[in-house]
């Protein structure tokens, strides 16, 4: 089925550990996004990518690293997790920026102890 798949759906880890959240889309959309969702803040953009090997920072990029070697995959890595990074993370895609993120995955709920 076409769509965006995020994995894992749930993750618990400890401060200081590295954790990678995966995102895979089947539409071949050029744009992909990572957002975090926190109560009272809505969704905030972490990083986005316009195409393979092209990435750029969003509103809250500190502590996160992304890569995009293939159009369909856009992993997000927390190199040394902190408790403030406890959140729900959403990956999204769009055929272009004109309409913003159009399709979202179902999210990864990440808890950092």
């Amino acid at each position, binding site marked *: 089925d076409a769509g965006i798949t995020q994995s894992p759906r749930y993750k618990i880890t400890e401060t200081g550990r590295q954790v990678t959240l995966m995102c895979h889309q089947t539409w071949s959309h050029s744009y992909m996004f990572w957002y975090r969702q926190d109560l009272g803040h809505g969704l*905030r953009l972490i990083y*986005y990518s316009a195409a393979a090997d092209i990435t750029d920072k969003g509103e809250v990029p500190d502590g996160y690293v992304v890569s995009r070697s293939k159009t369909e995959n856009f992993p997000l890595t927390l190199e040394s997790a902190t408790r403030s990074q406890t959140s729900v993370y959403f990956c*999204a895609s769009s055929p272009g920026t*004109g*309409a*913003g993120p159009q399709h979202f995955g179902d*999210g990864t709920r990440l808890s950092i102890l």
Partner: protein
Amino acid sequence: QQQVKQSPQSLIVQKGGISIINCAYENTAFDYFPWYQQFPGKGPALLIAIRPDVSEKKEGRFTISFNKSAKQFSLHIMDSQPGDSATYFCAARTNDMRFGAGTRLTVKP
């Protein structure tokens, strides 16, 4: 600081009633204003969107009203149904999308 301010935080409406959610912004460079609907455990889904050269857009029971001079826009859900119970986010775009904090809508049967 929130670039898009959304109100109310929560809203309870009777079935068949009109749900109204409001958003305000400051940045006049915003050029695209979407609304997203999110059900528990799911990602947001694009619901309806408007550009600032239009004052109103209607899709089925959902209408966006846009007031450029007041820098405000709102979502109206006519004949609200229990299945509309969800969290709604407004957003506004320049180089990237900025989201409101969300409104949790409950439609009582």
